[in-house]
């Protein structure tokens, strides 16, 4: 199997299958089976087929050709170069910033087999957690070496293995090429598998969940003018049509080989979420929520466009990967390799043109006061900042980060399977995925912005989730909060941690949402205050949801490798935060926010679980009618529960685990401690540093302690009822008000943006009506008057006169010619014959009398 | 025939000193043979029809005249018809009324001009036309003209209705009939009936009806359309006794009436022979007995003659069986209504024929030279198109020392005295046509032009025709070209 050809083919078909399904349902959906039921099967078959292709790509093509770290160190380009010390770079980094003493970590000096040693240590540590004390001791000894040697001595990581190319070139405008391309590395393949797996579960689940739509649907939430609830034909096939398009779009983002294609599919994902959130379009709330999601995303996309323009105008390409010819020479360089060149040891450095372009946006900044780097370089750095923040703006919108997080909770108006998909694998994942994909472009300053955004988001969202009573809304804010975790991890340099959390979160969040959907399906309400005690009625839902809750709070045995999936990823993030804060004590909030977030997460998740499943029923009527969902819905729950439990584990007997897979596509040049150019004090630690015991221990203990504390609090308040939540609410009324009203974000936006916008529009309307219209009316009146004059003088006498004269002449001629037209066919023929003969005669005669013949 | 007579010498004296005399005698002999075939055939078929209808209706049929089977019954009928009064209605258009039966009869006979009765290099055929299939269909279409004139000139409403129905029916059925006939033409790459018949040599699996599923289906469509186009039951609307008394021949009696019947049986016979040549191997039996017995060989030998006679017997037998099947159908199936007749043609026969034509084309394109049984034993010459042009459209010139061929002799180029055994045959001559034109133009010079050298190189080039071999065993562009050329050859 040649991966360069098979991978794109497999993934292309995995990508196109949902499109085929979409097109088929679009045209024939209504006629597929009774009430369009066949559409569901078609869409499900398509996504399952895509999943099969994706897993084939992963296990059949990628893994055999790219063995994971343990299997073959030497052959792996990622790890291979760890063992090769790069002496040539020692000098260039000797003037690297301060705090070298604090960089007491792995220092690999030349001749030894340090790389292999380190790898062995790290993998052993991650996989089996053997003898932490001994490892600590070894680290200690290494640290002494490190203090002796230069901390930057070890080489940066190269470009990860990838395959890129174009399926089809849409257009080429000079150097700018718009193409449908692919960029496939292990992240792409893993994302395909994850998206397809979750989407398959969602499809199966939706087959059961959406069965109301099979027949005429009575929407009890929409009241018509006559007081009757709205009745409308079911839109079963339409739902699956959108789902297919959604999956297709997400696959498109993941496989995209250039920024332009990302943007196209980015917008497709947006429009799909618009369709799906507004699926119950007759409900005012749903249509408003859909509009809100769409418009808020536009704000982010505006920034993304700016970022794209900045990159394009200075780099001249949209492509991620390098294009090489058969000899391995570059024919066209991608963004990543332009910004992180091998000459520069894969450190981020503005490309040549960026300085020039940078001057345009930062003209006054040319007289730099910072000694590091010349003025041109600083201008380029500013441009990189603009580009990075711009791209990140898109991610902010899509991944619902502060301050654009307001749309995601409202997106609850869509059907629950959509929420499960939007909140786990597709829409919001797209933002994090893009941030991960563009990671090599982000300078440390941009990463700091990302980190703070994620930090704020995670705290705010978590606090709102505490007070929400709508079961889906709690989960929605939990999603926002978890996305904040991911962004925080990325911003702190923890690429693997962030992406890993994306994967684990996808599984347990989709599980949680589908469980909540199952609950809603069972009790027909979203309100947790009307639930309670459902554990007995719907055991499968309850216990799978319990698995989800445990996963999201990161339950596990501290400092071990045993735990739910969230345990691995969340601990990795907190470790990264500790590692970062160790180097940058100024940014202490970034250290404590995730810890605090873990506490709140545990609290609100178990609040949710207790309110729903434990205790006594609060609404006996609803409790009596509650029932377990059909098997087509619970089966995906169980599947997802298994994954939520075990996605972070190593496959026994192999080194196959998600982090190892992700490590293979670690972005170029991110395995080194770097420093900000614009903020020289900012130090971005190498991610591997966070795995050291020094940070593992406090982080693990903190995470466990906070989670346990949160769980305990929730138990105390909501299960044992030692503390009455209503009394607490009364006591902390002001804080509750803040949380309950979602920090008044919607109101603030309404007052700051929407109201001034409306006011401005009103003024402009007045300007339009009063001034512009009067100008136009005046002009029109003038023209009209002029025309009247011309009409009277010129038109009526001269033009009309001549036209009438011609008409009269024609009329008279016609009257005269009329006599010839007798209407008799035979006379016409006779005329023809006679005139032919006459013509012949005339021609012959003329031929004779004309001289010179 | 004409060539034979032209060169025939008895006791050292040429029998025909002038070529036109040879042609005249040959023509008379052909005409006599054909008229005899149609007339005697009609006698036999009428008797056969009465016997068959009798047996089908559980009675004996004619038994009296001529012995046990009543085999002279038709002769007696004929004598009776001859002695009948020749009536003509008062309001009739005399000229047309009188001439109409002869038109039908002539058309029926004319069809036999182009029908070969035995194939081979020297086919037994009155006039070897290279557009034979086309000619036969055209002439069969003419037969309706007599019917229409008869219907009109009888000054009878019954007759007029019959003629109108006949006109509508025949004109409609010519379309699917032509479509069906095009398929064998396509497969053979020629409209020459001799070629079409000769490609089906060998086992019966080589018959074009077994060439592929499409030809098998289209054969039955052909049978249906042929039945309709010769105006036989269940399509005999023009003479529907129950509604129109006797249709177009209501007012006819005596010999004129019998001419219509001879025309009908003649055309039945001709379409049956046409079907047998197009689909059922023609003069080739189901098993190649002649080649097993080692017959054939040099033209003019006894073995060859025996083989030709066997072929003749095959053709006549197949034609007779076809006629018998038509009779069987007539006495089994009730007559359709006129709208049903038209629906059968327009809604069923034409679309089926069109689709089958397409299918056969695709088969021929995808599996050239292969039939339904997966055999590959069509003679290679089947898929060669022999013309005076090569694939690039350039006229080819001959090597100067080519052996003299049939064409050369026909053109009178060679001065050697020819006997049939001396003539060298090659593949091209099978397809060589000698149209009316070429015969008229070249034959007078054979006597006078003997010994005259070839005039110029150009003349040689144009006289000699080279074969253009189109390989059909390869697909792709060349395959497409072969289809184009065979379609072109069949158009």
């Amino acid at each position, binding site marked *: 199997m040649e991966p360069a050809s098979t991978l794109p083919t497999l993934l292309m078909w995995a990508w196109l299958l949902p499109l085929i399904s979409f097109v088929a349902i679009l045209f024939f959906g209504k006629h597929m089976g009774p009430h369009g039921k066949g559409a569901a099967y078609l869409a499900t078959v398509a996504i399952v087929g895509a999943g099969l292709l994706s897993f084939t790509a992963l296990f059949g093509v990628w893994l055999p050709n790219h063995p994971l770290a343990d299997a073959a160190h030497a052959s792996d380009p990622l790890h291979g170069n760890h063992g090769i010390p790069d002496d040539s770079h020692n000098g260039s980094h000797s003037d690297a910033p301060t705090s070298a003493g604090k960089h007491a970590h792995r220092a690999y000096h030349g001749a030894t087999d340090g790389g292999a040693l380190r790898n062995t240590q790290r993998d052993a540590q991650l996989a089996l957690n053997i003898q932490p004390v001994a490892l600590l001791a070894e680290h200690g000894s290494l640290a002494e070496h490190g203090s002796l040697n230069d901390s930057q001595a070890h080489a940066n990581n190269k470009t990860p293995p990838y395959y890129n190319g174009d399926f089809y070139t849409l257009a080429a405008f000079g150097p700018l090429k718009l193409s449908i391309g692919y960029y496939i590395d292990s992240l792409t393949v893993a994302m395909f598998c994850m998206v397809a797996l979750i989407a398959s579960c969602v499809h199966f689940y939706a087959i059961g969940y959406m069965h109301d739509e099979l027949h005429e649907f009575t929407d009890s939430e929409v009241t018509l003018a006559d007081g009757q609830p709205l009745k409308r034909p079911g839109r079963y096939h339409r739902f699956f049509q959108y789902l297919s398009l959604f999956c297709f779009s997400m696959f498109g983002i993941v496989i995209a080989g250039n920024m332009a294609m990302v943007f196209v599919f980015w917008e497709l994902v947006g429009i799909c979420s618009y369709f799906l959130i507004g699926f119950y379009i007759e409900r005012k709330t749903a249509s408003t929520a859909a509009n809100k999601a769409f418009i808020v995303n536009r704000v982010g996309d505006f920034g993304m466009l700016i970022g794209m323009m900045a990159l394009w105008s200075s780099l001249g390409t949209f492509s991620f990967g390098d294009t090489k010819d058969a000899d391995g020479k570059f024919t066209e360089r991608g963004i990543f390799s332009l910004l992180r060149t091998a000459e520069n040891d894969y450190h981020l450095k503005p490309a040549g043109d960026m300085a020039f372009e940078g001057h345009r946006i930062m003209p006054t900044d040319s007289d730099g006061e910072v000694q590091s780097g010349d003025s041109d370089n600083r201008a380029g750095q500013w441009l990189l900042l603009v580009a990075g923040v711009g791209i990140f703006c898109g991610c902010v919108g899509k991944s619902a980060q502060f301050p654009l997080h307001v749309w995601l909770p409202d997106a609850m108006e869509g059907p629950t399977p959509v929420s499960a998909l939007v909140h786990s694998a597709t829409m919001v994942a797209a933002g994090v995925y893009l941030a991960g994909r563009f990671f090599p472009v982000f300078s440390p300053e941009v990463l700091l912005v990302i980190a703070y955004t994620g930090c704020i988001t995670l705290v705010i969202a978590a606090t709102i989730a505490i007070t929400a009573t709508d079961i889906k809304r709690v989960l929605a804010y939990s999603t926002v909060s978890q996305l904040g975790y991911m962004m925080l991890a990325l911003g702190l340099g923890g690429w693997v941690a962030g992406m890993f959390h994306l994967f684990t979160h996808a599984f347990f969040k989709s599980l949680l949402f589908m469980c909540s959907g199952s609950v809603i399906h069972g009790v027909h309400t979203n309100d947790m205050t009307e639930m309670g005690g459902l554990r007995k009625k719907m055991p499968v839902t309850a216990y799978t949801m319990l698995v989800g809750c445990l996963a999201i709070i990161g339950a596990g045995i501290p400092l071990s490798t045993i735990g739910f999936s969230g345990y691995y990823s969340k601990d990795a993030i907190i470790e990264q935060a500790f590692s970062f804060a160790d180097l940058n004590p100024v940014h202490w909030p970034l250290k404590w926010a995730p810890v605090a977030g873990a506490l709140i997460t545990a609290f609100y998740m178990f609040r949710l679980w207790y309110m729903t499943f434990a205790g006594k029923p609060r609404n006996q009527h609803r409790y009596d009618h509650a029932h377990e969902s059909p098997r087509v819905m619970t089966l995906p729950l169980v599947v997802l529960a298994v994954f939520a439990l075990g996605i972070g584990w190593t496959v026994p007997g192999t080194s196959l685990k998600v982090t190892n897979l992700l490590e293979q596509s670690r972005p170029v040049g991110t395995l080194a401690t770097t420093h900000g150019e614009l903020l020289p004090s900012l130090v971005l630690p190498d991610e591997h540093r966070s795995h050291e015991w020094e940070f593992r221990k406090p982080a693990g203990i903190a995470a466990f302690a906070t989670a346990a504390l949160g769980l305990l609090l929730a138990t105390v308040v909501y299960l044992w009822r030692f503390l009455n939540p209503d009394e607490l609410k009364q006591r902390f009324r002001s804080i509750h008000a803040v949380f309950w009203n979602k920090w008044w974000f919607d109101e603030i936006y309404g007052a700051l943006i929407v109201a001034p916008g409306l006011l401005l529009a009103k003024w402009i309307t007045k300007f339009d009506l009063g001034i512009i219209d009067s100008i136009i009316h005046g002009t029109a009146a003038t023209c009209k008057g002029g025309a009247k004059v011309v009409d009277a003088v010129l038109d009526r006498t001269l033009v009309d006169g001549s036209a009438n004269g011609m008409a009269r002449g024609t009329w008279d001629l016609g009257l005269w010619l009329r006599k010839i037209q007798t209407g008799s066919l035979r006379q016409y023929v006779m005329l023809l014959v006679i005139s032919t003969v006459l013509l012949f005669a005339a021609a012959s005669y003329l031929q004779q009398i004309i001289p010179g013949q | 025939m004409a060539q034979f007579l032209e060169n025939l010498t008895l006791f050292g004296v040429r029998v025909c000193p002038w070529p036109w005399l040879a042609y005249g005698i040959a023509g008379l002999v052909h005409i006599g043979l054909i008229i005899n075939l149609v007339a005697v055939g009609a006698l036999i078929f009428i008797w056969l029809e009465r016997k068959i209808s009798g047996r089908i209706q559980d009675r004996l049929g004619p038994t009296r005249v001529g012995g046990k089977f009543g085999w002279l019954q038709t002769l007696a009928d004929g004598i009776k018809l001859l002695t009948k009064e020749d009536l003509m209605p008062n309001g009739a*258009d005399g000229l047309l009324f009188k*001439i109409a039966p002869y038109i039908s009869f002539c058309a029926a006979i004319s069809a036999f001009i182009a029908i070969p009765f035995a194939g081979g290099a020297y086919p037994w055929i009155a006039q070897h036309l290279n*557009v034979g299939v086309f000619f036969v269909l055209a002439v069969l279409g003419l037969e*309706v*003209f007599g019917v229409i004139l008869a219907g009109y000139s009888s000054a009878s409403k019954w007759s007029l209705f019959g003629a109108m129905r006949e006109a509508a029916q025949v*004109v409609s059925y010519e379309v699917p009939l032509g479509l069906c006939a095009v398929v064998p033409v396509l497969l053979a790459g020629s409209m020459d009936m001799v070629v079409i018949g000769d490609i089906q040599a060998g086992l019966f699996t080589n018959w074009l009806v077994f060439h592929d599923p499409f030809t098998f289906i289209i054969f039955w469509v052909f049978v249906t359309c042929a039945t309709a186009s010769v105006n036989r039951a269940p399509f005999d609307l023009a003479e529907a006794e129950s509604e129109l008394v006797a249709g177009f021949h209501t007012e006819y009696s005596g010999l004129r009436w019998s001419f219509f019947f001879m025309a009908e049986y003649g055309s039945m016979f001709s379409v049956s022979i046409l079907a047998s040549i197009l689909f059922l191997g023609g003069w080739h039996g189901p098993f190649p007995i002649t080649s097993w017995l080692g017959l054939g060989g040099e033209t003019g030998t006894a073995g060859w003659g025996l083989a030709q006679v066997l072929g003749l017997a095959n053709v006549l037998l197949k034609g007779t069986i076809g006629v018998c099947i038509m009779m069987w159908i007539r006495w089994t199936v009730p007559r359709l209504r006129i709208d049903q007749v038209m629906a059968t043609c327009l809604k069923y026969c034409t679309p089926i024929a069109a689709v089958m034509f397409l299918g056969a084309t695709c088969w021929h394109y995808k599996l050239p030279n292969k039939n339904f049984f997966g055999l590959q034993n069509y003679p290679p010459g089947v898929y060669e198109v022999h013309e*005076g042009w090569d694939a690039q459209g350039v006229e080819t010139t001959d090597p100067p020392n080519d052996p003299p061929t049939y064409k050369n002799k026909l053109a009178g180029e060679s001065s050697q005295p020819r006997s049939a055994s001396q003539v060298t045959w090659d593949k091209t001559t099978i397809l060589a046509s000698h149209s009316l034109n070429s015969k*008229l133009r070249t034959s007078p010079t054979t006597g006078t032009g003997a010994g005259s050298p070839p005039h110029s190189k150009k003349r040689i080039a144009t006289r000699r025709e080279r074969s253009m071999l189109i390989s059909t065993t390869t697909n792709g562009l060349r395959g497409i070209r072969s289809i184009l050329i065979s379609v072109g050859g069949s158009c």
Partner: protein
Amino acid sequence: MEGIYWPSVFFLLFGGIACAFAVAVLFSKNIVRMAFYLVISLAATAGLFFLAGADFVGAMQLMIYVGGTLVLLVFGVMLTSQERFVEMKSDAGDWVIGIFAGGALLVVLIWAAFSIPAWQGMDAAEANAVAVKKTVTPIAMGLLGFRVDAPDRSGYFFPFEIVSVHLLVVLVGAAYLARAKRKTTSANLATGD
């Protein structure tokens, strides 16, 4: 008999028949007989085509004109065959003008035909030397766009397609024009008209 050039004899025969029956068409009063004479004239024309080496066109003439067009014509004749239409006389004045004009036209045409020496024909030896060429395949290839006879001339594929579509349209249109009109008024229904 020895000096007779037989193609010319057949030309005279066919041409004579064609002209004679064309004149018969002109002077016949009965519409059905006109059709009959026309058939004979056209069949003789087909013979002339054969004689000129255009055997395929001749066969087409037989099949389409004589077999198809005239059947249609006769069909029309019968549909309208009422006594008053079978023989419709024209004015004598029309005849006089027609004969004079037509005669003048004929004279002009014949005079023109014989005034070009290249059209006079070849001598016998030259005519005998002309090669016999079959026309079916070249015509078919020409219709399919390949000119095997004259590679420098263009093929007729496109006109062929246009004519095919044209025929289809014409036949549909003709069927539409000639379709039976439904009598819709209730009065007609009541009276059985």
